[in-house]
């Protein structure tokens, strides 16, 4: 009897999944994993002989397996329950949030970062007063004992390596754990009130009112979400708007197109964080026609800057956002779009800790 149950049980199991997957329709995108799923491979003799045709079938059948998301979610739960593990795919997963564990502090990376900043400064705006801020990651605020970067050393090293005309804007006290998404590395725009105030104060700008009109996108699957396997519920993404933000025109140098700060179709991207100025791109110019200020900001930034820049639009008539991950610093002088000679110009370098500690992506 025991043997019959096992044999026929497995027979039924195989048949069920086999026929279910035959009848099931293929899915093209997994939003929770933020990636496209493998589709049925196309045969070619070259792909057959080099083995890639069967590899594609492997990926396709694995990606389109019935109840795949359910299995993935349960796996993390089971792993936590059976093994008591909090580490999943290199991330620390609690029931509330997911934390990416940063590699150890890299002094060579810090040096590369500060050298790059000094080189940009000496090439394009020598001896001028510039500001910089290194944004702590959310691990900084986590009380639990997990392996963390040596933040004190990081900030001290950056401070020591930069010349005196680089003025630090310390943001550590303006943020807290709740300022970050639970399933993503980024800060939440609606929690940046203190950050904006701190930047305005340190850069000598008049304070402005914080946008109050909230638009939301839910669920928002942050970049860490898939590592939590569904143990942590998705976030809510809030994007704030105001009159200034609504009328600001954004020029995307790479795409050679004008857009608005928020284009709601960007919420359909695999990464909904792209709602903030369309996502990763080398150069953006934001112009606020209603601005009462005639000041201009050159913002060297990573993705954290995308959600912050709209909040500074009341303080500036023009914000030029440069992402040195996607454009080489030596090319900046050749772009007519950027004019470093303007006298009413502020310069701000704004980077997250993880970019500073892995700065070789900055060119």
């Amino acid at each position, binding site marked *: 009897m*025991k*043997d*019959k*149950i*096992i*044999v026929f*049980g*497995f027979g039924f*199991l*195989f*048949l069920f*999944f*086999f026929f279910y*997957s035959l009848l099931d329709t293929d899915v093209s995108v997994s939003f929770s994993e933020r990636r496209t799923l493998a589709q049925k491979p196309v045969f070619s003799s070259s792909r*057959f*002989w*080099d*083995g890639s045709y*069967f590899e594609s*079938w*492997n990926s396709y*059948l*694995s990606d389109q*397996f019935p109840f*795949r998301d359910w*299995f*993935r979610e*349960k*796996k*993390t739960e*089971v*792993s936590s329950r*059976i*093994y*008591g*593990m*909090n*580490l999943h*795919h*290199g991330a620390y997963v609690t029931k509330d949030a997911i934390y990416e564990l940063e*590699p*150890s502090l890299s002094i060579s990376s810090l040096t590369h970062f500060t050298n790059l900043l000094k080189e940009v400064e000496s090439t394009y705006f020598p001896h001028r007063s510039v500001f910089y801020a290194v944004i702590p990651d959310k691990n900084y605020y986590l009380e639990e*004992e*997990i*392996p963390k970067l040596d933040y004190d050393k990081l900030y001290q090293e950056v401070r020591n390596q930069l010349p005196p005309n680089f003025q630090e804007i310390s943001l550590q006290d303006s943020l807290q754990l709740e300022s970050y998404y639970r399933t993503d590395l980024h800060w939440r725009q609606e929690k940046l009130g203190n950050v904006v105030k701190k930047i305005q104060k340190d850069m000598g700008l008049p304070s402005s009112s914080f946008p109050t009109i909230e638009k939301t996108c839910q669920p928002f699957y942050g970049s860490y979400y898939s590592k939590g*396997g569904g143990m942590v519920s998705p976030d809510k993404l809030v994007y704030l708007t105001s009159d200034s933000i609504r009328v600001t025109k954004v020029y995307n140098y790479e795409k050679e197109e004008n857009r608005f700060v928020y284009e709601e179709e960007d919420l359909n991207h695999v990464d909904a964080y792209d709602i903030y100025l369309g996502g990763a791109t080398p150069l953006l110019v934001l112009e606020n026609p209603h601005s009462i200020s005639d000041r201009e900001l050159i913002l060297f930034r990573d993705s954290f800057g995308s959600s912050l820049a709209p909040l500074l639009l009341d303080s500036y008539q023009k914000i030029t956002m440069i992402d040195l991950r996607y454009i080489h610093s030596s090319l900046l002088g050749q772009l007519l779009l950027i004019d470093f000679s303007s006298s009413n110009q502020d310069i701000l370098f704004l980077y997250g800790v993880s970019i500073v500690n892995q700065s070789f992506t900055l060119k």
Partner: protein
Amino acid sequence: MVFSSIPFLYYFLPVVLFCYFLVPRRLKNGILLIASFFFYSCGEPRFVFLLFFSGVFNYWIGKKIEKGRSTFRKRWFLFSLLVNFGMLFFFKYYFFVPSNFSKIFPGVLPYFRPILPIGISFFTFQAVSYVTDIYRKKQTSAKTVFSFLTYLSFFPQLIAGPIVRYETISAELSNRKETIEDISKGIRRFVVGLSKKVLLADVLGAFSATLKSFSPTVLGYWVQALANTFQLYFDFSGYSDMAIGLGLVFGFHFLENFNYPLIASTITDFWRRWHISLSSWFRDYVYIPLGGSRVKPMRHIFNILVVWACTGFWHGASWNFLLWGMYFAFFLILEKTILAKWISKHPKITRIVTIPILLVSFVLFNETDLSKLGTILQGMFFLDHLPFLHSELLFYLKDAAVLLFFSCLFATPIVPFVKKWLSKRKMGLSILSVLEVVFPFVFFFLSTMYLIDSTFQPFLYFRF
């Protein structure tokens, strides 16, 4: 395609099983042959012809050896060894010789690295055992080339063993019966292997990879050696379990390949329990022909060194594997000579001492870069002035504590012990019956969950 993959478990295997049990008896081997070649072509389409050639060649030469006159038999036999080992040497070792030669005399010998056909070491050793047994008149040749090809290419043991000898399954190739008891037993055995691979080996592998990524400590090196040892054991023995289980489903009875090697009391005992099909192959086809132990002491030592140099190199064309083989040869010689009497009197001490010896052996096994190997060994033995541990290591150890506990537990015969204990009790038998039905389904589902969410799934024994 590997056994522990969604395409194999939920698509390939069901289709093969369906066809196999649907067709009449005379067509069953045909289904297995087609399935095996398809299975191989999923991983290495380019080398399907090599496998086919090996099958046809060894069948042909087996007939020649069997029917040839005594002088010709030897020539045919030597020719078969030349072709089989020549093929293995070209694909697996060709790169090694000139690349090392060029370190001394740069640019003298041109060299390239041929792509290693999956499973070549396994199917070559099977073929050599086949022709050798025929030459020794221990075994008659296969009746048909079709039957021999089915044996050589049989997908459950094709790419990662065990090394199944023709004599083990020759009778079942032509006459076997698939019973519901065997199929059920095969499924349960397969699930045990799958679980070892997916729920333990892969998770241990990910843990070990994490340990590598932060600054070294003495304890960190030892924990990593432990994790690597467990990973290798559960990976390889899991694959053997799956192969044995699949064999049972199709009516074949393979010999055991592992017998809880990590509880071995001595290194000699370890090699009676680890990769049994390989160690017995070397015993029967290298060690005994060299004279085994029934020779003068120095010749005995020489025989051991030859066998373990070969065993090391079988695992890969790299100096660390040779070192690994010689390391075991050293302890085996010690156990058979100076320490023989002492060992028999102190079984408890030797069991404890064997564990660190094994851990170090798997450090040699895992690290192909000799300079890194030196650094690790220095670190392990306090020669590198490393801290004993740091908070980062403690964090990871705490996270993996249960995993390591389960690994220790399942590396021992705890399951057969519990089964035996339960079967002696009245209630125990009923509990056992329920568990034996429920566990395969539960662990199969758990393995599926892990496979679907898997990003870390190396197959360690593929490279052999």
